[in-house]
């Protein structure tokens, strides 16, 4: 199995995953609601004074973050488990497609789905900003890029759980980690706030879990603070490291899984 043919298989699985995901009602519904929310933002800006662009950007970026995360968890956590349960995998894994390639291909397809949803939602946001004579600034674009990294990382968490457990457990696990990932600072000092909470557990979770708050550049974008390219490079490396680790762990767990 050469690198070139391996890349072709990854492309095939990713493209098929993308086709499957964008046809799901969840995807269409989420993008629709995000658009709806941006319309609401257009109404809300009328009741604020000189804050219209900020309100729209704030609500728009929040919607992209929230709905993108929903897509990553619900589609990501179902990507491998569904094929195991429906037995579609039985046809594929006897072909020259390794279990590792299947997982990576599924994840890449999920990233493509997330990217599509974000482009659509960003178009909605740009449209809303354009109506109040605002623009899509570099800092806004930086914030969106950071959100894309964060949501792909959440998707990798979903795919990891999908390789090891049923759909419901995978969604639950991915949701818990996505929430805890936004509370790592709280977890670090949990023993101070919550009596009896083991200090080692809080610090352990802080070190182990991805700190998703690192990816939150929304406030800086809304207030026009410039984001240095170096920060985006660091965030990319940080997300990539977690994604590689999660997919490697998922592949390891999936390698010995019986497909009944």
């Amino acid at each position, binding site marked *: 199995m050469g690198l070139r*043919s391996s890349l*072709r*298989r990854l*492309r*095939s699985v990713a493209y*098929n995953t993308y*086709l*499957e995901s964008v*046809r799901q009602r969840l995807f269409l519904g989420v993008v629709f609601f995000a658009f709806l929310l941006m319309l609401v933002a257009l109404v809300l800006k009328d009741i604020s004074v000189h804050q219209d662009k900020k309100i729209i950007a704030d609500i728009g970026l929040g919607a992209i973050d929230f709905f993108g995360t929903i897509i990553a968890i619900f589609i990501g956590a179902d990507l491998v488990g569904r094929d195991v349960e*429906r*037995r*579609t995998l*039985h*046809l*594929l*894994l*006897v*072909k*020259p*497609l*390794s279990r590792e390639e299947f997982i990576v291909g599924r994840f890449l397809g999920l990233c493509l789905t997330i990217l599509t949803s974000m482009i659509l939602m960003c178009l909605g946001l740009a449209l809303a900003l354009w109506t109040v004579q605002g623009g899509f600034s570099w800092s806004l674009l930086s914030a969106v890029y950071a959100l894309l990294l964060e949501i792909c990382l959440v998707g990798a968490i979903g795919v990891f759980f999908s390789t090891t457990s049923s759909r419901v457990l995978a969604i639950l696990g991915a949701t818990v980690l996505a929430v805890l990932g936004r509370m790592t600072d709280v977890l670090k000092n949990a023993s101070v706030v919550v009596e009896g909470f083991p200090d080692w557990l809080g610090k352990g979770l802080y070190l182990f879990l991805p700190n998703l708050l690192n990816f939150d550049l929304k406030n800086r974008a809304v207030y026009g603070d410039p984001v240095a390219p170096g920060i985006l490079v660091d965030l990319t490396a940080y997300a990539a490291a977690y994604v590689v680790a999660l997919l490697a762990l998922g592949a390891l767990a999936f390698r*010995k899984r*019986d*497909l*009944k």
Partner: protein
Amino acid sequence: MSSGFLSLRGVVKIVKTPFSRRPGFRVGPLNLSIAEGEIVGLIGANGAGKTTTLKLLLGLLIPDAGQIDLVGRPSSSGEWRSEVGYLPEQPAFYEYLSGREFLTFVGDLFGLDSRVLSGRVSSLLERVGIAESANRPIRTYSKGMQQRLGLAQALLNEPKLLLLDEPMSGLDPIGRRFVRDLLLELKAQGRSILFSTHIIPDAEFVCDRIALIRAGQLTALGTVDDLLGLPTGFEIAAVKSMLAATPGGPAARSEDERFTVRVAPSELTRTIEGILSQGAHLVSVSPIRASVEDLLAPQATRV
């Protein structure tokens, strides 16, 4: 024919139910070898371990013990994948794709050149009889059409070895005959085939050897004649209303113009000559012998 094209040596699998304290269903130890160009039927009742055996061969289930070789290579190496075709029982597809799109997706996994792939997909769709529905989503296919698509994807890489799990399942009589003819055609091309079934006459018709599996154990393995013995008689079917003139006399049964006669092997030639000489048309001559069902009975063990 070289031996060991496919082989299982001492393969054991204990299939456990999750969260259950029960010991699980034990399959094996399985010992089986198939030569190049041979068709072997794996016959057993539901739950006997046929599907588990096929999944062990393909690495979908990880064996607890034993050694498996496919196309002369260790199963664990995965090097056999481009030379093996597999049809699962009740194949599941991405149903939003059309039959053509699904086969193209599968062909991509084999790394086939796009022009070669396109031609092969079209000819296979034609061959399995679903060319007219090729561009419709699979979710609109009947069960029989899905089974035919399953066969097409198993043949896409022109495999040397085919593992088919209940290939006649869900097919009407015409479909069953199509699969039977296809198996014989593939055998004539020198391909090896292991297929599971509980439709025994089909297995008897196409197999060089049959393996009987019961409660996870191979209980008999051999040619049809080895296992069932020579015929104890023959049943002759012919067409024309001529009951009174039939040499078989009391054993004859009239159904409009069609009738059947049961005769001893020594009477076969004389009886056929008698039927033909009176202007009747011969429909079939079937051997009467112990059935494979008899061998599947609990007391039978003949490995």
